[in-house]
Each structure stands twice: as C-alpha cells, then as structure tokens.
C-alpha cells in the first residue's frame, strides 16, 4: 500500500492483474446480458401478436436494448483488457467508465419507463413482489 503523498510503485503488469483474474466473471456477465437481449427479443415477437400488448412490447424492446448495450460495453472492456499494455491502461479505464455510464443510464431509463408503465397499468408494480 502506498503512503499518502507518495506515488505507488509501478507493478510489472501495470496493476491490471486483478482485472485479468476476474476476466472469466466478466464473460459470465456478458453471457447473461446476451441471454437477456435474446429472450427479450423473443418476448417482443410473442407480445406483438397479442391484443393490447403495446406496453409489454415497449418493455421487452427496452430490455433487449439494455442487454445489447451492456453486452457491447463488456465486449469493449474485454477487448481493451486483452490489448492492454503495462504502461498504458487508458483504454481499459475508458471501457470501465463506459460500462458505468451504460449501467447508470440503463437503470435511469428503465426506472422512468417503469414509473410510466405503473401509472398506466396498476398491476405492473405487483410484478416486482
């Protein structure tokens, strides 16, 4: 651990060892994001043929978009990690920053959609229970 005021000692790998070690877990999350996107797309086609399923179609479309966006961010992160150099981790940090932004925006957008859907269909809030 570095003392206050002193710069930390540079490690041979540039300090990305923990990220490299957690690489399989990022793949697991990527897998779940892809599954979310694909299942949501299936849900869009199923709901599209049902009468009055417009809100559900928007819900599934939104989930598919969120799953695809998060999967894209993780893909970018994994690519940056595999190409990272010990003396330059900017791309990895950019990918991590994009990931946080994607998660934050997704949560906000989905929360706004959820509140809107709950106001139009009172039963939606019960689905969380």
């Amino acid at each position, binding site marked *: *651990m*570095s*003392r*206050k*005021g*002193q*710069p*930390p000692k*540079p*490690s041979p790998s*540039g*300090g*990305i*060892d*923990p*990220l490299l*070690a*957690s690489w*399989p*877990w*990022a793949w*697991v*999350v990527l897998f*779940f994001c892809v599954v979310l996107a694909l299942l949501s797309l299936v849900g869009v086609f199923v709901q599209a043929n049902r009468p009055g399923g417009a809100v559900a179609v928007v819900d599934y479309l939104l989930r598919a978009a969120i799953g695809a966006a998060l999967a894209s961010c993780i893909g970018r992160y994994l690519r940056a990690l595999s190409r990272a150099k010990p*003396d*330059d*981790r*900017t791309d990895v*940090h*950019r990918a*991590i*920053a*994009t990931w*946080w*932004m994607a*998660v*934050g*925006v997704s*949560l*906000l957008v989905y*929360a706004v959609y959820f509140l809107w859907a709950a106001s139009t269909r009172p039963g939606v809030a019960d689905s*969380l*229970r």
Partner: protein
Amino acid sequence: MSRKSQPPKPPPVDLDPLLASRPWVWVVLGFCVLAVAFFLYGAYLAADDLRYGGEFYLWARLGDNLLRAAIAAGLIYCLVRYLRALGNGSPGTDVAAVHRAVAAWWTVLAVGLLVYMAYFLWSLAMQAEARRFDRGEVREVRDHRGQNHVA
C-alpha cells in the same frame, strides 16, 4: 525512449475516464441502495403473509427477496470500495486497489447472477411440484423403511 542516464518517464495519468464516470457510479450505487430497501420490504411482506399459512410459494418469495437483497448489498460493498479506492484521483491513488474493486464487482455480479439463476430454476421446479400435489396428480407414499417417496 528514455536514455540510460535519465529516469524512465512515469506512466501517463489514465484515471481521468474513471473520475469522469464517478457520477454514474453514484447513480448505480443509489439504485443498489433502493434495491436493498425494496427487497427487504418485499421479504418483510412475504414473512408477514407466512403467518397465515406456510405455502411453498411464500417461502420461495421470501428467499427470492432475501437473495436479491444480498446480491444488491454485495454490489454496494464493491461500489463503495471502488469509490474509496478512486478517491479524488490524486497522484497517490493506488490504481491496483481500483482494479481490485472493479474485479470484485465483476465477481459479485457474476456469482450473484449464477446463484440467482440456480435459485430461480429450483423454485420454479418446486412450485410446479407443489401444484401437482395440490391437483392430486402425485402423492407421497412411505416405504417399508419409513422413507417418503413421490408416487
């Protein structure tokens, strides 16, 4: 390239993207805190309903809410660790600690998703079995050794 007599150049300051994305991390943290409160409240409601009858689906709902709350709490821990490690990006920032926090986030998120998926599938199977019992399609019989079997 640096000459032999000169000290090597320090690595470029590359924490700027992470510092710029700190507000989004706070947004994610806020949602995780809301999720913990929401799921704990759901668990409380399920536990309250259990007083009037111990149907399996109520236990499943209780476990579901508790598991989701635990996963969200784990994510909160990782995010707080990350924000503390990142600090304000001063030259003394331990970049390896930031990376360890991000690695912990991936681990908790992935393990949480796997455990929740396993629990979800198990509770679905158990609820289907409970419905079959309710409809009388299956019943439990006791063999000569006193062990119960589904028939």
